[in-house]
Structure formats: structure tokens, C-alpha cells
């Protein structure tokens, strides 16, 4: 078990595994996203109150959901990086941060574009919106802190501590609409029992959510590969990839 685990966590074999896995993740996410968004924009019925404006849910809810799960994954990778000093966990953290930050930014901005026509304001300082903004700053803090270090290993360890400390914000974002009263509505996805969404509206939402999750997995794997290449520069397996790339370039230019 442990030998298997160590072999998987070794940079060249993880790189190769990611190389095999990524195209499938990318293709599956593309299908789910195209299907979910086209269905959501063109075929889902309009909402009885919000008319067509409710369709923003198909980009807002998936990005908001992954903004939280990516942060949790980053914090877990941080714990592993601090305790076991596994390089791959450091790479995972640093690969998740930009993807998570971009998803958080999309969730915030699509939320504003939804809030203006429906609530009457782009932004209010209620518990949900404020804590999601804090989430964005935590992601940006991790990215900035990493770049402030010359040594990637020391930088990753500092980032891990920030990521772990910032994890207290995750349950605050998630449960803010239940713990406090706020302008933001409750969660559509997790409410059991009572009708929250008709099936024709919920189908595209689940497709877009699954597609976004797979897409983020794809983007994180690709960034982890890059992170590994930079850190392992000068090793034999990276050298081989570089020679292969040079051959590709030459044949492409001919």
C-alpha cells in the first residue's frame, strides 16, 4: 500500500498519470458544461418571478460551489504538506489557488450581475457576500505569499499555514445564510423535501455543477504538472520531455 502510494506521489509517475487522465476530464467537462448551459439558456422554463434573469444561476451556483470545495481541498493539501512534507501536496496547493481565485471572482461578479436586476443592488455587505469576498482575498493572499518567497518549499509551507488558518471562513460562507439573516437567499441545492426547483430547471444546474467540478479538476491537474516541471527542472524525466517538445517544434516548423 505505502510503496504504491509513494510511487504514485513521485513526480514523474504523477505527471504521466495526469497526462493520461486530463483529456478525459476535459472532454467530460466540456460535454456537461455545453449541455447544461445550452439547456439552461434555451430550454429550461423561465422563473415565475425572476423571468429569464434566474438563468444566471447556471453560472453563479456552480462557481460558488467549487470556490468552497477548492478551498477545502487546498487546506487539506496544506495539512499534508506541513506534516508529511510531500512535494506533490505543495504543488496541489499552489495549483488550486489560481483556479479557486478565478472561480470565486466569477461567483462574486455573476452574483452582482444577478443582484442588480433582482434585489435592486449590485452589492450589499451581508454575511454571505462579505465572507465570499474574504474567500477571494484568502486565495489572493496564498498566491501572493508564494511569490514573495524565493525558495518554493519554504513558500509553500507558509502558504499552507495561511490556507489552514483561512479554512475557518469556509463554514462561515456555507452556513452564513442560515446562521444570520441576510439579503442572500438560502441554498437551492441542499434543501431537502420542499420543492425548490422544478425538474426541468434543476437538470441543467446539476449538469453545469458536475461539469464545473470536472473542469476544475482538469485545470488543477494541468497546473500541478507545470508546477512539477518547474520544481524538477534539470532532472532526467523533465529533460526527456523537453527534448520531445523540441522535436515537436522542429517538425511543426518544417
Amino acid at each position, binding site marked *: 500500500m505505502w510503496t504504491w502510494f509513494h510511487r504514485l506521489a513521485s513526480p514523474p509517475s504523477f505527471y504521466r498519470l495526469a497526462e493520461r487522465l486530463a483529456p478525459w476530464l476535459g472532454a467530460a467537462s466540456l460535454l456537461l458544461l455545453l449541455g447544461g448551459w445550452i439547456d439552461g439558456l434555451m430550454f429550461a*422554463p*423561465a*422563473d*415565475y*418571478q*425572476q423571468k429569464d434573469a*434566474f438563468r444566471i*444561476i447556471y453560472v453563479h451556483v456552480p462557481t460558488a460551489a467549487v470556490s468552497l470545495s477548492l478551498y477545502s481541498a487546498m487546506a487539506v493539501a496544506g*495539512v499534508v504538506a*506541513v*506534516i*508529511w512534507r510531500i512535494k506533490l501536496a505543495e504543488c496541489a496547493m499552489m495549483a488550486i489557488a489560481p483556479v479557486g481565485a478565478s472561480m470565486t471572482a466569477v461567483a462574486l461578479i455573476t452574483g452582482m450581475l444577478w443582484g442588480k*436586476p*433582482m*434585489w*435592486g*443592488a449590485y452589492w*450589499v455587505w*451581508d*454575511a454571505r457576500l462579505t465572507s465570499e469576498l474574504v474567500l477571494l482575498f484568502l486565495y489572493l493572499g496564498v498566491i501572493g505569499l508564494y511569490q514573495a518567497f524565493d525558495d518554493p518549499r519554504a513558500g509553500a509551507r507558509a502558504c499552507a*499555514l495561511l490556507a*489552514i*488558518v483561512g*479554512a*475557518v471562513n469556509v463554514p*462561515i460562507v456555507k452556513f452564513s445564510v442560515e*446562521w*444570520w*439573516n*441576510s*439579503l442572500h*437567499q*438560502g*441554498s*437551492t441545492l441542499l*434543501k431537502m423535501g*420542499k*420543492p*425548490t*426547483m*422544478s425538474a*426541468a*430547471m434543476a437538470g441543467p444546474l446539476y449538469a453545469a455543477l458536475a461539469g464545473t467540478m470536472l473542469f476544475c479538476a482538469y485545470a488543477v491537474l494541468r497546473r500541478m504538472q507545470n508546477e512539477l516541471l518547474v520544481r524538477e527542472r534539470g532532472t532526467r524525466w523533465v529533460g526527456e520531455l523537453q527534448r520531445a517538445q523540441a522535436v515537436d517544434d522542429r517538425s511543426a516548423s518544417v
Partner: protein
Amino acid sequence: MTKRQTRMVAVAGLIFGLGVAAALAFTAFRKNMMYFYTPSDLVAHTVPEDAKIRVGGLVVAGTVLRADDLDVRFTLADCEQTVPVRYRGILPDLFREGQGIVATGRMASDGAFVADEVLAKHDENYMPPDLKEALTTADGRHSCAPFKSVTGASPAVAG
């Protein structure tokens, strides 16, 4: 202890400390992060006049009176209490009888709430028009449950 175990204990301690600190901060600041008061809060406690506050509730059906294009009066309710509201300005598209709203403004000496901003608070339910009956009560009202009292004096009971 090996170095790795030391680190494990340190991280566990960090997470535990954070959890305790977060729980303490949560109990201490819970009221401060409430976005609005409910009509029950306004009835149960005297809010100083001219203090700028927010109040959230449902627009009671049959109470919306429009004097001219911009002047509007209505009654706002949570699960238990009501408060009259006066407002002059543009209302959001979703404003209608039975709708949840959050108004910013001040208490006037006559007991009415004078708003200078009204935002709509919709719920997490999305339905095509032909299925909406599943969501609202007979008089077109939405659930009053999302309007949680700051002072803890009320709702939650009447769903």
C-alpha cells in the same frame, strides 16, 4: 516523538485553537452580522429615532398604497408582527404584495418606518409560472422563515 509527530500535534493544536476562537467570535458577534431587524425586533425594542437601520419582512397583501408615481406606503410583516413603511423612490422589479423585502431607513415619531432604499429579497425556490402554487400560501405570501429575529424574540415557529 519524531519530528513528523511534533508537526502533527502542532497542526492539530492550530486547528483546535482556530475552532475555539471561531466559535467564541461567532457567539460574541452573531448579532452584529445580522443584516436587518425584523418587525418583531422593532416592536419588542425601542430603536432610537434617527438611527439608520434595516428592516426585513414580507409586504402584506392588500396594504400597498401608491400616492403618485414614487410615493408608496405598505405594511411589512414577519411571522408575528407588522410595521408600517413609507418610501419614496424606485422599487425593484420584484417588489409586489407577498414579496420579501429589506428596507433601509429610520423610525419616525409616529411609529412608521421611513425607508430611503428598498431591496427585494427573493427565496431559493425557482419554478415555472404554472407550478408556482406549490411555493406560496393562498394569499400569495412567501415563507416568513428567512426573516430571523436579531434579538431572538421570535419566528422560526410559524413556518
